[in-house]
């Protein structure tokens, strides 16, 4: 069986970045859960900071430069996506949203997504539910029930409700969705034609009266 391909996307801007740290931990949890289920796993990591210029260019020109094109293919063509953004002004970062904005929405359909977010305090933890989940629902991605929010204080917390516990639960839920959907998503083809649209009434073969 082909290896499961996971892409880990981090929208963190600082170096080092706690969003990247959370993304890597989520990636490890998901990969570990998939290996427990008997799968080989390949993980690709993408930092949007490296693509900031290309993302802005794409907003203006309408097409991605080669490095961004590869990142978009890695994100939308994966068997599962781990997407982590810092919380800026009560939502995902503008760069994170801009990256999503330059991708054709249909390319996210049925993509399993494990959501993560970081912030300075736990007061923003619902950003997962009021910003990220509606975004991925609109895109018809399939989000894992548990997302993981990490505030600064979480990096020092342990125990039954600690970060590792949440990472493991999120990874396991996500792994089940990834396993179910793997190999079932059709490849995206921008040149595919909707035969119904062209061949139905009002299409090329007629459907208009001939006099």
């Amino acid at each position, binding site marked *: 069986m082909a290896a499961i391909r996971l892409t880990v996307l981090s929208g963190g801007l600082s170096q080092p970045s706690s969003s990247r740290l959370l993304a890597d931990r989520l990636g490890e949890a998901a990969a570990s859960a998939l290996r427990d289920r008997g799968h080989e796993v390949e993980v690709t990591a993408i930092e949007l900071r490296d693509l900031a210029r290309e993302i*802005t*260019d794409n*907003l*203006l*020109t*309408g*097409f991605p*430069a*080669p490095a961004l094109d590869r990142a978009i293919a890695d994100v939308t063509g994966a068997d599962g996506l781990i997407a982590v953004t810092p919380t800026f002004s009560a939502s995902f970062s503008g760069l994170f949203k801009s990256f999503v904005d330059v991708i054709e929405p249909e390319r996210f359909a049925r993509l399993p997504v494990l959501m993560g977010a970081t912030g300075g305090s736990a007061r923003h933890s619902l950003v997962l539910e009021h910003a990220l989940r509606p975004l991925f629902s609109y895109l018809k991605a399939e989000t894992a029930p548990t997302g993981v929010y990490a505030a600064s204080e979480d990096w020092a917390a342990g125990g039954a409700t600690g970060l590792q516990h949440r990472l493991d639960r999120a990874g396991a839920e996500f792994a089940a969705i990834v396993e179910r959907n793997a190999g079932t998503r059709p490849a995206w083809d*921008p*040149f*595919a*034609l*909707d*035969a*119904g*649209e*062209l*061949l*139905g*009434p*009002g*299409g*090329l*073969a*007629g*459907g*208009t*009266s*001939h*006099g």
Partner: protein
Amino acid sequence: MQFGIFSVGDVTVDPTTGTAPTEGERIKAILAIAQKAEEVGLDVFALGEHHNPPFVPSSPTTMLGWIAAKTQRLQLSTATTLITTNDPVKIAEDYAMLQHVADGRVDLTLGRGNTGPVYPWFGKDIREGIPLALENYALLRRLWDEEFVDWEGRFRTPLQGFQSTPRPLDGASPFVWHGSIRSPQIAEQAAFYGDGFFANHIFWPASHTAQMVRLYRQRFEHYGHGAADQAIVGLGGQVFMAKNSQDAVRAFRPYFDNAPVYGHGPSLEDFTSQTPLTVGSPQEVIDKTLGFRDYVGDYQRQLFLMDHAGLPLKTVLEQLDLLGEEVVPVLRAEFAKNRPAHVPDAPTHEALVATAGRRTEARERARGIAEADAERHAAAQPKAPQGASFSRQAR
């Protein structure tokens, strides 16, 4: 092979002087540019159609009619004519009229437009863009191909026994190109009718244009209009030249950096590496343009965008001198080499008059092929449960 220029007719501030031409100055500049195109030996001048600033050409046939009177050989075309928001009856009449005025030196390129609000301004719905393009063109074809037309469709009032006037010159309607950047449906439409396909080409990477043209060629063959390499392909291009490559880059950079479409985005260097834009010596323009054939095959028409982004008229005219004197003669000779004899030229009026009957028969055959495709497609669909209605018909 035909070489020419196309203008979108934007009024843009010249970033090096901070001034913009008036609408009147820009309109006169476009007319001067068209005359210059013939003077320097180009074959085609194509004009855009827009209904919102900063663009001025809202009425292309008015301007093309004037140009027709001032030129002898120049083929007049559009880039593009809005098949979605114009009444196809008016397109049929305007361009047949222009054919008579210009002694047949007319073709047109149909497009769906680049500005969302144009649809509601003309009473249309942008979500119907593709169905509008399909139905309006189906009516346009019949208005040109049949004397009297009975028509009923979704998007305009019905017609009974209507005859558009004047009739196409010598019984041969203007050749039609279909233009699209990213909609495969339009490539399919061009292929179905055996019409030309014009790839804008200039704003997107070559790999994308290559796939659109390949799709069009395959479907052209599928619909029985000839072999894939006999399909009629046009490409856009965009160049700025100086004898010395560095001078070209230095002179064009402020225009590039502030251009309406890509300004304040990618660097000139990135954009030239990712798209067909060439800024350099005439030899560099020749080399890059000859490379287009590597990914679209032997093609019929190459149009360059030369007058945009606030470039002053004097500069544009100098650019046209370089294009006509140093670039196009070499391109003509080089593109003619190794070109198979069965690859046709872009149709002229004379060729269309000679082949009008064959074209009608080919379109009838294509209709039969599409109907058979539709039947196969319908048979492959799951049966609708009883009582359910999936009809998309508006009638």
